[in-house]
């Protein structure tokens, strides 16, 4: 099995790639869910880019729309009610959103793969895990059943499932949570994708198992040079693995930056508020500093800056003027706050 994908093929699903384009680029993506009682804009002007070997974290709370752009990349948004109302998703320069479904399938299998939070529901309960992994090879590479099974065993070995040869005939329910997540990672990596999207991959796992799985993902990334998009709400997990971070709030990216930038010099009051609401190792006996209120309902998005009702820095302008995401301090660093220069003064 080849273990490097950093330099991919010059052709993707029949389209010529652009060698200068980022591995994956999402530009001004807008996703709407059109429901009977109104339209919810789940993603609004969402843009980010991913390079090979890099880990981009998309950090957000429930309902922030952090998973929606990933679903748009994969082409798995339920439609209706979901519609991609604008923007583009390019893989090596090739536009995915206008691609026919048949070509999309090739991309999904061979180039971009995704793993989900709940491995038990993502795996088919009536087939053995070996069958499900081998299926990837049989369908996409047309290899024989025997060869596919051998490859599946090799893969289970690679994600460190003990006694892979015996366990290949087991069914998903016979695996523990951590082992199931490994099976899912194995399936996602079967065809050496260049991009792996991990949507809350360790949220359902215990701390000690979570550490194992994150370690595994890191090692696999180093081996293959794949780009990783990590979608999570967990500031701890982000701090451990991400190179860059995009923080989402109410369907938009409110801040982007390198991992050090985001944690050491947040430039959006929401990011700062998240950091400060975490209990730290020496916060005992002191009061925590929560963000007041709760995340907005996207159907009743506040006017102006969506964060202003909860923001301690808010001024009259914030309730009327919607702050755009603007580049600050150079490339890759942006904030959607009118007063981003003052955020660090708030830091207690």
């Amino acid at each position, binding site marked *: 099995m080849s273990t490097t994908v950093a330099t991919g093929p010059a052709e993707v699903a029949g389209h010529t790639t652009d060698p200068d384009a980022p591995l994956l680029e999402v530009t001004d993506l807008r996703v709407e869910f059109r429901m009977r009682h109104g339209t919810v804009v789940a993603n609004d002007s969402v843009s980010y880019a991913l390079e090979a070997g890099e880990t981009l974290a998309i950090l957000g*709370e*429930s309902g922030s729309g952090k998973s929606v752009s990933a679903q748009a990349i994969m082409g798995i948004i339920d439609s209706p009610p979901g519609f991609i109302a604008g923007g583009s998703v390019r893989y090596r320069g090739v536009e995915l959103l206008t691609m026919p479904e048949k070509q999309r399938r090739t991309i999904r299998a061979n180039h971009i793969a995704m793993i989900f939070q709940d491995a038990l529901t993502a795996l088919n309960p009536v087939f053995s895990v070996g069958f499900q992994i081998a299926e990837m090879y049989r369908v996409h590479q047309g290899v024989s059943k025997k060869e596919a099974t051998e490859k599946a065993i090799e893969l289970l070995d690679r994600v460190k499932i*003990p006694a892979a040869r015996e366990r290949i005939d087991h069914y998903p329910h016979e695996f*523990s949570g*951590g*082992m199931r997540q490994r099976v899912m990672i194995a399936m996602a990596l079967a065809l050496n994708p260049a991009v792996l999207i991990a949507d809350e991959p360790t949220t359902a796992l*215990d*701390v*000690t*198992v*979570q*550490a*194992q799985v*994150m*370690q595994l993902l890191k090692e696999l990334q180093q081996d293959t040079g794949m780009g990783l998009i990590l979608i999570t*709400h*967990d*500031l*701890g*997990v*982000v*701090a*451990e*693995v991400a190179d860059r971070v995009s923080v989402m709030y109410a369907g938009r990216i409110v801040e982007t930056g390198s*991992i*050090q930038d985001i*944690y*050491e010099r947040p430039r959006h009051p929401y990011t700062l*508020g*998240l*950091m400060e*609401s*975490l*209990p*730290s*190792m020496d*916060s*005992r006996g002191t*009061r*925590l*500093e*929560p*963000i*007041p209120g*709760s*995340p907005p309902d996207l159907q009743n998005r506040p006017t102006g800056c969506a964060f202003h009702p*909860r923001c301690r820095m808010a001024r009259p302008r914030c309730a009327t003027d919607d702050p755009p995401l603007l580049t600050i301090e150079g490339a890759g660093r942006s904030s959607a706050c009118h007063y981003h220069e003052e955020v660090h003064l708030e830091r207690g």
Partner: protein
Amino acid sequence: MSAVEIERTGHDFRESPDEPVLRVEGLVKHFPIRQGVVIKRQVGAVQAVDGVSFDLKQGETLGLVGESGCGKSTVARTLMRLQEPTAGKAFYKGRDIFDLGKGDLRRIRREIQMIFQDPYASLNPRMTVGDIVGEPWEIHPDVLPKAERRHRVGELLELVGLNPNHLNRYPHQFSGGQRQRVGVARALALNPSVIICDEPVSALDVSVQAQVVNLLEDIQDEFGLSYIFIAHDLSVVRHISDRVAVMYLGKIVEIGDADEIYNAPTHPYTQALLSAAPKPDPSARDDVNRIILEGDVPNPADPPSGCNFRTRCWKADDLCAREEPLLETHGVGGHPSACHYAELRSTDVA
């Protein structure tokens, strides 16, 4: 916090102040595994809780941490007698909770209340928030005369930071954090002295978690409540707890003051657990001293011989397979630890 005054009834704290509010001794809960169609035979038992003992002092918070399946929620449920224990004793102010008749049990239950993890599942969607918070008085009518109840519901809602005029609303009209506040108000309705919080903030968003943690600390100060705080999030437990008990596969493996457990853990499992927890600090990344355990928690229906943790422990040897280590104080750490080889980590000593 509002100045609402809640009249405390039926409490007698004139007993000696050092006497624990709750003393649990040798709590065991085994769930039988049965086989057979007509004649069901017991073929084994899931040893969910296997000999757990601890004290809870007045006004104190005891954190109970451990991974899923370690038995921490089963401890909570048996203390509430939502499940009958297999063996053991639990004394609430000197009376054994497990040895009470229906009437006495009912009287003691109002002293020990519970807050649940899922604020969506633990509130009846067809009842108004006012009815939910007031329901405990239907079962314990002598706590508060009927005429005062509606007023008290408003006071309780205000106390937990909700608008008292919202008592006719339904749970779905509230956010997750607000719902958890309703759960707190309901737990306070009977003026308990102990509240068992079973993962009270795990289902909440990070920005809202801190609000509920602050609320729990405020009402504890106001009413002198004792908490058993069950959670898997180590930093939240550290923040709120005075003492911490670490559980693994049905047993407490280490117990002590929060500072001791977090700064000077002597049990390898505690050390691994603390080391594995992701820290929200990018500069702590690639810590060479990080312990990443191998494998999974063993099946509680078939626990290993000797020490439960030996199958994943890097220190394990023949002794660990032969002899179960007792939870006792060793020369190091100054607090009980159930390991034959209890010692500080070399990195913690430095």
